């Protein structure tokens, strides 16, 4: 049994029309404004009279036409269609009953109308007659498999008797089919993207059918803002990363997987902590005080990608780790203004469109994938420190040198008559404590994915589940994610489609202080000298300064629990052919609990009898989008795509934090048991409303034009500047289609592209940034080394509630504006076996949302203004090639490289960032420039530093500080992928590189202290100058070289690196074997991550950066390095 036009899919026993009405009703309630007329339009089509004129057509076709004109559906079997043979009908405004009588009763069949479904019965006599008639034509059962020219099995290909769609089937996931056909019939095999193949069914087979790729249809479809487009007609700069490139990567979040995959996209995993923040920069950084992170859009939902945790621990968390990477079909990175302008005021940093997998027609496919592995630091941190005896010798040497500097010789006496005495009498016997090994671990890694997908022409579904566990390489760090996804597409009729994507995940993180702080476990393992024991005699932690690294890893009791729901619902209504209206309703809700208990063995808990902190964050976004698209194809010459839409988004973030101190014992860890309690909470909102449109026009797919326009209003901006207009235009020319190119058959594609447009940026600033405010929270300081007034404390005075000025009013505040020019060329050679894309871009950002420093005498430090300009320009190259394409052996190469040059062009006044003013922003210099005292070298005679000075030649610590020409920007960066396939084996090796970027090794600043501090030494200190003639850049151990106000440039290190990021070897068990086991496909693989790293950087990882922000990149202090992972996995399809 089946509905009117369904293929041989699942029998459907529910009637969809009444349901449609119910669904519509729901929509009407939620969005009556838009859908009133949708419902109205349906009402128009509800007449129960029929006008039809068809000759010699199948009865199935008649049923379809009736269904289009009425609410009635038909339920019938294949035999009905065959028994009816060809029918003709000619009625005008006739009642349904009469039509059915004419059609059905006259043919000896009966029908019954239940609700709005017409059920057609074939009397037994007719069926028998048909069966008797059958031998007229002998039927045979044929079978076979469909593959492409490279041997890839093609699932979902259509195999049918020519011109008889009822006699057809689709291949299963392994490309196999069986079909009953009349002997000698012509069989047609079709598949999208391939040339149709015909053959004669002379024997049962099996047939090994190979489909040739259709070069004209090879152009893949890319996802663009609010739609899809053929790769061939795209005139903007978009990079697509397919799920194929994301497999075998044991990474918690999809953004991390983009590293090295797309030209112009710089991805830095700031820390090796699983689930920690990732810095993604698309074509450089456009902002100083607002955000430079791209906009992430998942299945049309712009989602939250900023850290939402209240506990910083020196590193942000990454909300994108809540997503399950194996749900992803593709990621498209929109880079130039032509691609991004449709996202208007949020597009200046590029847009990452993430598309999840959806069900396809065909029988249910069950996939299970699992992997397990283990991770360790790729470099032993012990290599970076000195042992106990060396520590004591160095301290003695510093003391001796200082004595000589002060009093002339070691034999001299100080004014009090004391002689020199070394601080450590017997360094050779010093204790040697290894602080590193007890805090590091070998972390396990486990992942399992399962999904079921399938469907028919009416309903397609994909359901997936995932469990991901990764332990950090430091104790007791852990990340766990459990997620579920349901994607459903439902065709109510030819005109109306619905769909939904519902994603739920639960992420749990155990974290420790990780980076950017003296309470970081790793930093303290360096701070703590090796010559002291780890524990006191009474068994307590030995704690000369701050927190013991052992206490941090053993005692930290922190759990962050995130529940996230991303859901959307859409309805497509085809108003007439080519004109489609879509409305989408989405939400992204993050609900986060954090619980932290500092027990009495930790510094934070000792004095107060334990301290527990709990916080709850609720971040809710809801989004509505309404799109109208119109496609026009005139004689295959003129193609016009038109898009208009509106969108509205609102975000509300609220939090409550409570702290309790004084617990009866460490067994009580919840605030309810605390002696004293206090709490805090706040909420804030933002909203953005937009109208947008796009026109794509092409002439013979050869001359391409595209215009985008978006009009955005944001609650964040001043009353005088709330709305902004963001246009873009682009042109393309497929030169290879011109007649004069026909003489070059090896060139399959040569397309020129040029675009220009304007986009905006409004993220990363306060929600009420334009208002002059007084508030109950203290503001205005950056905080120093002790108890900091900082942001966030209440402005109360003891027990008296108070409030104070928070910010100056700026009613003119508006978005940052980025104008971008892009010129590119896409080349394809040898039937697109070799593809090359080259792009040049120039981005000019003006009206920076800048916290302009104001005189402190006003009572304020900064005022947010639109001031300042920044430039990013660069080139991007992408090459994809199939080097070898044999029967048994293939070799694919993918290479991408890019270069970005960033420059601050206008700034109100230079200002410094980061601890000890180590980063300076100044006109004429790029962002992330280090601000140092330039060390020209170490005098081989004296061992003292030779400083760069001003014209007077005398080094002045206040005046002679310079912006280094070394900064965190790479000269170029990219990735290289090689994929080999030999028979059933596949091997891929992915290298990622960055060249010419520098990291400020802040660890060395502290641990190369030349005796100025009592804390541990880094290994570099051993290379110090010791006697005349020594050539080194580490100066003599003496205060004169290690003054606390010095910011020596030698700690800025070349952090260029080449990393074998991923290597993976897989084996697919041959189809025949698998089949015997009753399975579809099995692939086994082993994979390694961060397998080899080539770098001159002396720290633990060249990729790291403490609490990466818009102004701080490339600083290494106590950050957990990237793990080296080895794992094995299995993928099974049923």
């Amino acid at each position, binding site marked *: 049994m089946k509905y009117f036009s369904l293929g041989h899919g699942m029998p459907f026993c529910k009637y969809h029309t009444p349901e449609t009405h119910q669904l519509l009703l729901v929509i009407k309630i939620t969005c009556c404004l838009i859908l009133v*007329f949708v419902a109205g339009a349906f009402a128009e089509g509800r007449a129960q009279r029929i006008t039809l004129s068809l000759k010699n057509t199948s009865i199935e076709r008649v049923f379809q036409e009736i269904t289009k004109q009425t609410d009635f559906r038909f339920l019938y079997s294949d035999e009905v269609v065959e028994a009816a043979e060809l029918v003709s009908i000619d009625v005008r405004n006739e009642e349904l009953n009469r039509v059915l009588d004419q059609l059905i009763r006259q043919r000896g069949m009966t029908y019954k109308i239940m609700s709005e479904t017409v059920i057609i019965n074939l009397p037994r006599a007719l069926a028998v007659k048909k069966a008797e008639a059958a031998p007229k034509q002998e039927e045979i059962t044929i079978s076979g498999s469909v593959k492409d020219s490279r041997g890839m099995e093609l699932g979902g290909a259509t195999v049918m008797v020519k011109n008889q769609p009822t006699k057809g089937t689709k291949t299963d996931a392994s490309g196999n089919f069986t079909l009953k056909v009349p002997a000698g019939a012509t069989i047609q095999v079709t598949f999208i993207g391939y040339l149709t193949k015909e053959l004669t069914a002379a024997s049962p087979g099996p047939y090994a059918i190979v489909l040739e790729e259709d070069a004209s249809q090879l152009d893949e479809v890319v996802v663009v803002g609010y739609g899809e487009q053929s790769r061939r007609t795209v005139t903007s700069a978009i990079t697509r990363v397919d799920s194929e490139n994301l497999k075998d990567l044991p990474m918690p979040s999809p953004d991390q997987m983009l590293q090295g995959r797309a030209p112009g996209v710089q991805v830095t995993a700031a820390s090796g902590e699983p689930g920690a923040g990732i810095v993604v920069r698309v074509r450089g950084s456009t902002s100083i005080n607002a955000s430079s992170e791209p906009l992430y859009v998942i299945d049309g939902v712009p989602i939250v990608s900023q850290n939402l945790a209240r506990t910083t621990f020196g590193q942000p968390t990454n909300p994108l780790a809540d997503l399950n990477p194996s749900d992803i079909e593709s990621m498209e990175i929109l880079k130039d203004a032509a691609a991004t302008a449709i996202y208007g005021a949020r597009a200046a940093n590029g847009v990452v469109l993430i598309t999840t997998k959806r069900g396809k027609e065909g029988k249910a496919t069950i996939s299970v994938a699992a992997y397990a592995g283990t991770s360790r630091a790729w470099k032993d941190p012990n290599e970076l420190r000195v042992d106990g005896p060396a520590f004591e010798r160095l301290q003695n040497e*510093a003391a001796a040198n200082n004595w000589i*500097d002060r009093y002339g010789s070691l034999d001299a006496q100080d*004014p009090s008559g004391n002689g020199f005495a070394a601080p450590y009498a017997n360094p050779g016997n010093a204790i040697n404590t290894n602080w590193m090994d007890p805090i590091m671990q070998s972390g396990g890694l486990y992942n399992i994915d399962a999904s079921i997908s399938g469907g028919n022409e009416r309903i397609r579904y994909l359901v997936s589940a995932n469990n991901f566990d990764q332990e950090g390489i430091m104790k007791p760090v852990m990340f766990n994610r459990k997620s579920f996804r349901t994607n459903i597409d439902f065709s109510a009729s030819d005109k109306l489609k619905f769909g939904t994507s519902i994603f739920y995940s639960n992420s749990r993180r155990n974290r420790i202080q990780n980076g950017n702080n*003296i309470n970081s476990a790793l930093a303290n393992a360096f701070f703590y000298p090796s010559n002291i024991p780890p524990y006191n005699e009474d068994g307590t932690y030995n704690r000369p*300064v*701050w927190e013991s690294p052992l206490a941090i890893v053993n005692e930290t009791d922190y759990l962050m629990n995130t529940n996230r729901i991303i859901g959307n619902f859409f309805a497509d209504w085809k*108003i007439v052919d080519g004109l489609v209206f879509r409305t989408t309703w989405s939400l992204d809700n993050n609900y986060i609990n954090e619980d932290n208990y500092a027990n009495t063995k930790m*510094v*934070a808990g000792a004095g107060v009898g334990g301290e527990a902190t709990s916080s709850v964050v609720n971040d809710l976004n809801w989004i509505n989008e*309404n799109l109208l698209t119109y496609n026009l194809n005139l004689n295959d010459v003129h193609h016009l795509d038109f898009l*208009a839409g*509106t969108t*509205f988004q*609102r975000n509300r973030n609220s939090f409550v934090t409570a702290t309790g*101190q004084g617990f009866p014992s460490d067994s009580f860890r919840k605030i309810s048991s605390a002696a004293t309690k*206090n709490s805090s909470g706040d909420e804030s909102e933002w*909203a953005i*409303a937009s109208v947008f449109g796009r026109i794509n026009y092409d002439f013979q797919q050869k001359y391409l034009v595209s215009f985008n326009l978006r009009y955005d*209003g*944001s*609650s964040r901006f001043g009353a005088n500047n*709330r709305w902004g207009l963001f246009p873009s235009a682009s042109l393309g020319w497929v030169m290879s289609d011109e007649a004069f190119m026909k003489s070059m058959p090896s060139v399959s594609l040569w397309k020129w592209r040029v675009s220009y447009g304007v986009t905006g940026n409004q993220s990363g600033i306060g929600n*009420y940034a334009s*208002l*002059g*405010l*007084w*508030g109950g*929270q203290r503001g*205005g300081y950056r905080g*120093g*080394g*002790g*108890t900091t007034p900082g942001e966030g*404390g*209440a*402005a*109360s*005075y*003891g027990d008296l509630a108070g*409030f*104070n*000025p928070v910010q*100056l*009013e700026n009613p003119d505040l508006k978005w940052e504006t980025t104008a971008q020019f892009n010129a590119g060329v896409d080349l394809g050679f040898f039937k697109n076996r070799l593809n090359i894309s080259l792009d040049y871009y120039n981005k000019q950002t003006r009206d920076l949302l800048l916290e302009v*420093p104001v*005189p*402190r*005498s006003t*009572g304020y*430090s900064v005022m947010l203004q639109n001031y300042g300009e920044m430039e990013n320009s660069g080139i991007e190259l992408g090459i994809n090639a199939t080097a070898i394409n044999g029967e048994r052996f293939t070799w694919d190469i993918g290479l991408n490289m890019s270069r970005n040059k960033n420059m601050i062009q206008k700034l109100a*006044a230079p200002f*410094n960032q980061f601890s000890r*003013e180590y980063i300076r922003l100044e006109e004429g210099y790029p962002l992330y420039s280090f601000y140092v005292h330039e060390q020209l070298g170490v005098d081989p005679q004296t061992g003292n530093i030779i400083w760069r000075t001003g014209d007077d030649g005398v080094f002045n610590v*206040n005046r002679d500080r310079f912006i280094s020409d070394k900064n965190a920007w790479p000269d170029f960066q990219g990735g290289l992928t090689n994929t080999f396939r030999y028979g059933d084996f596949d091997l891929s090796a992915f290298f990622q590189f960055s060249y010419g970027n520098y990291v400020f090794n802040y660890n060395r600043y502290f641990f190369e202290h030349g005796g100025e501090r*009592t804390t541990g030494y880094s290994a570099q200190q051993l290379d110090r100058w010791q006697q005349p003639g020594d050539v080194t850049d580490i100066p003599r151990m003496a*205060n004169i070289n290690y003054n*606390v*106000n010095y910011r020596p440039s030698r700690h800025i290190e070349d952090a260029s690196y080449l990393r074998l990021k991923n290597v993976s070897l897989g084996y697919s068990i041959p189809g025949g074997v698998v089949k015997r086991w009753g399975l579809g496909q099995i692939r086994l693989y082993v994979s390694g991550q961060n397998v080899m790293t080539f770098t001159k950087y002396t720290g633990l990882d060249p990729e790291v950066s403490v609490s990466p922000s818009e102004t701080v990149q490339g600083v290494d202090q106590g950050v957990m390095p990237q793990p080296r992972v080895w794992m094995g996995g299995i993928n099974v399809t049923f």
Partner: protein
Amino acid sequence: MKTRVAIILGVFSLSGCNLLDLEPVSQITSNQAFSNLNSAEGAVNGMYNNLQTPYMWRVQVITDVASDMSQQIDTWDALIAADEFNWSVDNSEVEDLYTSYYRCIDIANNIITYVPQMDIDQSVKDDMVGQAYWVRGLAYFDLARLFGGYPQVYGELGAVIVTEPSSGVSDSDMRPRSSLTETYAQAESDLQQALQLLPESRSSTVLTKVKATKPAARALLARYYLYNRQWDLAEQYATEAIAGKPLSVPFMTIFRSKNTEESLFEVQFNNVDINGLRNWYYPSNLSARGGTALHQSTYSATTADPDDVRAQLLARNPTMNTYYPTKWDDPQEGDNFQLLRLAEQYLIRAEARAELGSLNEALADLNIVRARAGLDPRSADSKDAVISAIMDERRLEFVGEGQRWFDVIRRGLGLNTFTGIVRTTGSQPSYSLTEPGRQVLPIPSVETRANPNIVQNEAYQ
């Protein structure tokens, strides 16, 4: 169809307009700050909240570490620089200190400007405006002595003087520094205004100590005239501040209890709104940072006389083998700070009287302080000897309270006293203050960059 599209777009843009007007729920716009009595009182409390920033530890720890009182023993180089007489213009602690005073001044300017326009009781207005003048006077006095100099000892340039509330930023905000004399004069005028307007006391003892009153104004004026070497006025205001009260509160109680008879003004803290002194001094095994400690010499001087009860408020950090003050010992760091206390007024009067030649009266005041500490009276027969005894006493009485740096320099003894100071952790055997210009702190570089009309202090150019 077109009309339908137009309707959709229209409806959304219109509804968007209204939905985009979002107001904060936990903050108010500037024009609402003085709309009623409650919010005006909130602004006054907010002003004291900002006064907490310099006095939660900054003035005390920064200047004590800079003097021969305390030292920095961990890695915080902003304070190591203080310890080694080696400030740089980028020093972040100096920056926060400088900023915090101007935040107090801006709020005070708002109160002084807007409260008189309110429709509330005149006595309430006078009280609030008087407190604003008092806080502003204190801020200018501190800015003058920290960044400008000391009358007749060192310095000519003072602070930038602002007396209007800030609303935006324009070229007129690029003010130059006033002279040191003008800055001190501003402080004097503000404190005198405060003395006129403030009440003698408030409804409760606590409210009297928590917020400025006439006694607090008198005490601060006495300190002001002492620095300005106007000895007769210093004696007069100290006498009025003392108002015949003896030193009746036991030394330990002054700090371990809140708002005692000893205090003329205390900066208030509680376990949420915390005081940072304990955190800097207490060692890490007692749940604190332990980044600062007393110099060995401070410990030796305080414990020199076994009868001195003040030595009971010192403890040893066993891992670093250093000593620290335990005056503020609440593990939850909610101790108040005694900004103006009676003992200081006795010592101010003693010093003023000694300068005026009344040596016996001076010694009498000095010995009142010594008596409470459990010490025998001192005698001295010359003005210099009496003053020297008073200086010694101040050093012991105000351990950790941020007086020492100013006392030594205002007496003109900076370059002599701050010589050959041994740090526990420093790499040099000892450190000395050698440049006269380093008796004041640098103007933070953030200020000189944002305002090109600011002249940097000579030692830091």
